[in-house]
């Protein structure tokens, strides 16, 4: 939903009142807008998208050797047996309709590809639906293997399917910026914002709050949670057995009590205090702290990571903006000087800048705006990067410097930083390209 739908209070100031502006003047409607429909970016959801996509790629990717055992008709749950359990026509899975083994393999490959695409934000508007359908299909094909984290994933994925994700921190955004910069390198397409993005972020926040509240409330019905023994008991289970922790808790049993009560306290406090401006940072830290413990001590890595990604919906936009500004400040300014008469240079520059979401790199065409630092003779041989301290890095070294400092280019770090090898190959390759740029 584009931002033109935003019914901000400021819009009511317009002398010519439109129907929606008229409605927006009611306090109740203004409150409703503030609650659900602020004009914001998708950034918190994008962080969750990247994390969940990567986690699912790893989770289902590692299950690939067991594809037929877990979800096949000759595996643990033959279809005939499953049919006896299924009574609800709304329980659906694509696997119910497969008849040949290649279909399992093809769908699994497509699903993994879409998980990777979701992580990278490539064609996000449709791959997110494939990931949701795939995830639900795996769950429903063998319900005997599903557990809490699969349920949480389904909830978060559905909200992401509603949301206009892929508009930031994604290859879709890179493509949008690249398209604009190919026409004009100085073009700076506005970051996507929308009231619907905020509404979906809010939905994810409510999902996490509901989950924590009921998780905490259910615990209040159990004796072990009241007596403070629950955590001790969990660590005695074969599944979560940890010799070191068990020895520690046995000698300092008060730690088991603190951990038990602390878990309930955090789960019950979270749904109430996470909404307040002052308490949100503390609740977020507490929730993440809790999940890191689950990951490290109970080995619930996948569950904990998915939960932490859900908590990312509570990241404030101002925090992300401050983080971006801090990073930009720490890395310092960077000016890339290029040859504006070279088509290849402009195209590659457009592609490079499309990944610079924080706009850390300034550009200068030495043909129209000569640099006071680097002479034109030098510029004819290579692209240069000028740093605030006056250093000028040529060609490959310029790229090498930038990829480490621009987060959108981190995926290139492995290519530029292989010891010895990167420079050995990179320098001659860059020099060859620079020398032949006129016909590339």
């Amino acid at each position, binding site marked *: 939903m584009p931002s033109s*739908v935003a019914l901000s209070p400021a819009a009511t100031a317009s002398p010519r009142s439109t129907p929606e502006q008229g*409605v927006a003047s009611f306090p109740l409607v203004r409150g409703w807008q503030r609650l*659900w429909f602020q004009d914001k970016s998708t950034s918190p959801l994008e962080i969750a998208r990247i994390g969940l996509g990567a986690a699912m790629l790893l989770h289902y990717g*590692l299950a690939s050797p067991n594809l037929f055992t877990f979800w096949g008709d000759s595996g643990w*749950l033959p279809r005939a047996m499953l049919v006896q359990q299924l009574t609800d026509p709304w329980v659906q899975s694509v696997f119910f309709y497969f008849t040949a083994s290649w279909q399992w393999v093809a769908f699994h490959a497509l699903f993994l590809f879409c998980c990777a695409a979701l992580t990278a934000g490539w064609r996000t508007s449709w791959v997110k639906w494939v990931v949701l359908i795939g995830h639900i299909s795996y769950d429903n094909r063998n319900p005997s293997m599903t557990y809490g984290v699969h349920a949480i994933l*389904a909830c978060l994925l559905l909200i992401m399917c509603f949301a206009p994700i892929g508009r930031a921190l994604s290859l879709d955004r890179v493509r949008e910026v690249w398209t604009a910069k190919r026409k004009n390198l100085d073009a700076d397409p506005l970051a996507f914002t929308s009231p619907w993005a905020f509404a979906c972020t809010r939905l994810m926040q409510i999902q996490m709050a509901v989950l924590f509240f009921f998780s905490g409330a259910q*615990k209040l019905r159990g004796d072990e949670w009241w007596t403070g023994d629950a955590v001790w008991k969990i660590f005695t289970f074969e599944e979560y057995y940890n010799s070191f922790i068990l020895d520690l808790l046995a000698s300092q049993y008060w730690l088991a009590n603190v951990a038990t009560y602390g878990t309930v306290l955090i789960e019950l406090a979270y749904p109430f205090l996470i909404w307040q401006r002052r308490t949100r940072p503390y609740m977020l830290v507490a929730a993440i702290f809790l999940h890191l413990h689950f990951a490290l001590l109970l080995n619930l890595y996948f569950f904990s990571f998915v939960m932490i990604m859900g908590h990312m919906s509570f990241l404030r936009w101002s925090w992300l903006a401050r983080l971006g500004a801090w990073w930009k400040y720490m890395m310092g300014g960077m000016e890339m000087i290029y040859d504006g008469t070279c088509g290849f240079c402009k195209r590659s520059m457009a592609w490079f800048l499309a990944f610079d979401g924080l706009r850390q790199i300034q550009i200068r065409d030495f043909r129209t705006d000569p640099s006071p630092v680097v002479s034109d003779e030098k510029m004819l041989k290579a692209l240069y990067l000028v740093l605030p301290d006056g250093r000028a890095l040529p060609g490959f070294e310029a790229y090498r410097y930038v990829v480490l400092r621009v987060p959108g280019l981190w995926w290139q770090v492995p290519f530029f930083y292989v010891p010895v090898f990167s420079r050995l190959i990179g320098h001659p390759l860059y020099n060859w390209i620079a020398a032949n740029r006129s016909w590339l």
Partner: protein
Amino acid sequence: MTTTKRQRPFLAYAAMSLLVVWHTLAMIIAVSPDSVLTQAVRRLFDPYLTLFNLDNYWGFFAPHVGMGYQFRYVVEDAGGQQHVFIPTDKLSRFNPNSIWLRDRYRNVIDSADMYGDVTVAELCREHTALRPVAITLLEAEEKEFGPMDRRLGKDPLDPEFITVHAFRTIRCPAQ
């Protein structure tokens, strides 16, 4: 009836409001305890909750933590010898598959009538080298294990803290 350009944003806004209200209610109803009110509303939400797997009970280790257990099995070979296996010993906690496998073993224990035959058939294939005749499925149920027991150097899976019982013996299918 056609909508004018001026009405469109308002309609979009109304549709968005409807969806967020619907989904928020669904999230709450999915987990709410049964009551006359929730049961009535549930009928409306059930297809939506089921189709998208939203119908969940967020009771992690709750209300009761429960008791620990371990799935084991005994392979009886053609010579009458018995070989005990503890499949969870082979699982790596760093591999996400291990959680799936553990859930599977739990299900075999809980619903042996349903999953027993398939599981045994698979285990017989896995242990073909032993020339298995039958497999007995076992559950080692953990008993209370306190901090004092630990301080005495005991372990939750020591024989005195578990009860092992066979819950099904199934003959291997003919190869």
